[in-house]
């Protein structure tokens, strides 16, 4: 009986986590480059119940039981966000639809092969470096140029070029003078290249990206697995646009209600257990 009480409580905690995740999606409905997050719940490992206290030949197994649920992970949904035109020369948007030969991905970027192997679509990301020199990735392309000419992401991280150095505009050159070429190279009005092309990274395992705050992602694991994207296989960068958040307001509202009601349902179960315990403790065997 107590087991069920804990199961319902675990359900409440899980729904709370889901609710928090949806709230964060709603919070970032206006954030450029934000990717909607999905909280994944998993049941507790199954336990086997069997009838005890009976003679050896009557021993019976009752079956499996999952004694609870927990919020296992929060994963980003890397669906392409809409491109919004701003005309600002320091706004860049990535259109990422990387083709992997022989693999067809569905809308969520997942592919299941004939023998059941699951693979995920690689994602293209801007590569930036924090003031401390750590490498981060982002899709939020609303950059700005600081007084020294460095191109910086919204949180202040430095945008990197193909050589892995911080991209810097030469003195006297304005970002408004430059236009982006198809290969990620910024060039002046005469078509002369200014600096090296921007470094667009290809992340083959996008779920290894962990959110780091300030609009950035950190790659968990070996950085060597992140390579420079090839502009011929489905990566496009546009200047004067930014990628809007891919959060769906209607879906978020509905999920919010669902999480709240599921939380309530679990609470009702907790109350039922409480009533049952009340009967067992206070009423059974009461005399008079």
């Amino acid at each position: 009986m107590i087991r069920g009480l804990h199961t319902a409580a675990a359900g409440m905690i899980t729904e709370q986590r889901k609710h928090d995740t949806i709230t964060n999606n709603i919070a970032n409905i206006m954030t450029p480059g934000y990717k909607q997050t999905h909280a994944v719940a998993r049941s507790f490992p199954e336990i086997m119940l069997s009838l005890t206290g009976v003679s050896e030949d009557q021993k019976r197994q009752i079956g499996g039981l999952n004694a609870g649920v927990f919020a296992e992970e929060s994963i980003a949904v890397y669906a392409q966000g809409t491109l919004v035109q701003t005309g600002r020369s320091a706004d860049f948007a990535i259109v990422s639809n990387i083709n992997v030969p022989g693999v067809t991905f569905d809308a969520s970027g997942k592919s299941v092969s004939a023998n059941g192997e699951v693979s995920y679509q690689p994602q293209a990301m801007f590569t930036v470096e924090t003031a401390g020199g750590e490498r981060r990735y982002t899709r939020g392309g609303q950059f700005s140029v600081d007084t020294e000419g460095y191109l910086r992401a919204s949180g202040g991280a430095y945008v990197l070029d193909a050589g892995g150095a911080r991209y810097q505009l030469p003195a006297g050159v304005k970002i408004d003078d430059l236009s982006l070429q198809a290969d990620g190279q910024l060039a002046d009005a005469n078509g002369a290249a200014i600096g090296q092309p921007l470094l667009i990274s290809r992340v083959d395992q996008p779920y290894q990206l962990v959110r780091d705050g300030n609009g950035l992602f950190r790659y968990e694991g070996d950085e060597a697995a992140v390579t420079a994207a090839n502009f011929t296989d489905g990566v496009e960068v546009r200047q004067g646009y930014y990628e809007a958040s891919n959060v769906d307001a209607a879906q978020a509202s509905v999920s919010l209600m669902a999480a709240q009601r599921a939380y309530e349902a679990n609470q009702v179960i907790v109350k039922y257990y409480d009533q049952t315990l009340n009967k067992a403790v206070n009423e059974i065997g009461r005399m008079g």
Partner: protein
Amino acid sequence: MNPSIINAMNTMGSLQRRLDIVGENMANMDTVGYKQRTTSFEDLLYNAKQQSEKLQLDGRLSPQNFNQGWGAKLANTGLSFTQGAFKETGVPSDLAIEGNALFEVLADGERAYTRAGTFKLSPTNAGGSLLTTAEGYPLAAVQVNPAGNVVRGANGAVVETQIVVPVGTRMHIDANGTVYAQKANGEATPLGRLRMREIVRADGLTPVNNHLFVVANAAETEQIVRSIGTELDADGNEIGIGAYNVAIRQGFLEQSNVDIAASMVDVLQMQRAYQLAARALSSGDAMMGIANAIRS
């Protein structure tokens, strides 16, 4: 407290500030030389709810730990120096800049820059009228010779001056920024050339009051706003401000560059995002109520 409530609270604060900025832009829709403030959002910090290694189960996609976000914040607040529309006034001391440049102003001994061309001619004790901003700060200019070319010192340095229009003459300014005193018979004498600055790093400009901008670190002035219209090319000819696609229009004023339609759309979007966040907050509150009602 319920994390959803904290998250929604953070976000509503940020949305409110964005709305304040849009409100400021809309209030200055008719302010001459006003430049629209721009801003954007980014996600706030994340924390990881620790998980033991045993939770790295089959079918899991992401690395260990459950990541939880805490809302959105304002980021990338800046100024948009796009061109505003011209309005003809016919007033000779009204000047408008076409292109990406600023006038240089001497504000109480400091250098400031502006695009608000509502200037005036203030009478001086010595006779004549000084060209100043509406607040009375003189405009910086360089001396020119009677042919209208910039006067250079021994080392090629320009000589700074201020524009004083003599009594009995009218002020005439050409597209290059050279100011002439014009007599009734049409005879014109050059008085000086207005100092113009091209905006190279807009992020280095700080708006202060009276539509002025200043450069926080004076040593970086030339990097942030480059002096144009006085230097010479390889053949010794002057490079006009036209080479930078800049021109001065006398008798016109530059209106603010606030896009009213875009601002209205922004207000609507902010309002809806605010409502959604408020909805998440009340939903979080309801959940706390539910938890409270377990024992009732």
